[in-house]
């Protein structure tokens, strides 16, 4: 509702000004969202530390699976750092949840090129993880 009020109360509400306000609000929302994610996480960690107990309720995954995921995650970071830059960019966006067309727009590459780089990059990543004894 505050956003609507901003529109209503905008003293010089021309098109350009509204675009500026829109950009500002989205930035604020993004910043607040990231802050909130981290705040909740810290509070959760602090709560666990205070109680000195295992994090029973924070996840539905079992501890072994979490540990394995974390190990794979660290392996991915290392493997990405060894990959060629183009493949790394493509694979990173893939791991971030971007589709190939999405990633191609972000990187300003053709869809075909992006698809090839994601494919080859993932192959590199799997091979690298295998050499570390990690299986996805």
């Amino acid at each position, binding site marked *: *509702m*505050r*956003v*609507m*009020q*901003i*529109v209503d*109360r*905008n*003293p*010089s509400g021309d098109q*350009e*000004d*509204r675009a*500026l*306000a*829109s*950009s*500002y*609000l*989205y*930035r*604020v*929302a*993004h*910043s*607040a*969202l*990231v*802050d*909130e*994610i*981290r705040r909740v*996480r810290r509070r959760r960690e602090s709560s666990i530390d205070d109680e000195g107990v295992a994090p029973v309720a924070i996840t539905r995954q079992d501890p072994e699976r*979490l540990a394995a*995921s*974390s190990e*794979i*995650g*660290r392996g*991915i*970071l290392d493997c*990405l*750092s060894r990959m060629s*830059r183009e493949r*790394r*960019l493509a694979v*990173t966006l*893939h*791991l*971030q*949840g*971007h589709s190939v067309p999405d990633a191609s*727009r*972000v*990187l*300003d590459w053709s869809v075909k090129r992006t698809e090839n780089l994601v494919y080859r990059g*993932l192959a590199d*990543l799997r091979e690298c993880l295998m050499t570390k004894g990690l299986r*996805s």
Partner: protein
Amino acid sequence: MPDDERAAIVSDRQTADDTLRAAFQSLAESARGDVSAADLDLVWRAVSGELPAAERGELVDRTATDPALAEAWRAARELQHAAAPATAAAPDRFVPRRSWLAAAALLLIGVATAVVFRLPPFSREETFRDADHYVVEPLMQGDATLPRNAFRLRWRPGPPESRYRVRVTTEDLRILAAESDLTVPELVVDAAQLASVAPGSRVLWQVDVTLPGGESVSSQTFSVRVQ
């Protein structure tokens, strides 16, 4: 290859991909460093398509090895997706997807989940830089208190002939003052415009600068208290 077999392979590949994604994204859980305001701004501009492609690439490269930055990227993308339904036009272009309705929805979701809007205190290290290295910095201490009858916001001037737009809001984003096309790097907010702000309350402000060459530079969001 039989269809069943092919489907099984595709399914396995999909499961493996999901596992990799989950593992990569879970790294943010143990990330220790915070993302600076300048980087948050960069991420937002990259995801919304405002950043040039080469700089987007550089930022993506950083997300490959910085889980906190990667998480900020995903958060920005979520916001973009939330904005998408109301601005379905031009789906094939990587352009900012903005709408007031979506922004309202986002903030309503924020209220519903009891998200408290809090701004970190200003830090001199957290400044936004443009391609020409002009930094919009306030010329006052972070979280300073200004008298309401002499409420002057000042910032480091840009190159000669720069133009400034300033927006001042309450913490709950109610606009108190908005001025554009300023030629001097300061804004005096009238006491009457601050009448609704309780003593000691914080207000937020942001500057957008149009440089002589036409390039735009945005500041991070600053805060200051009203006496």
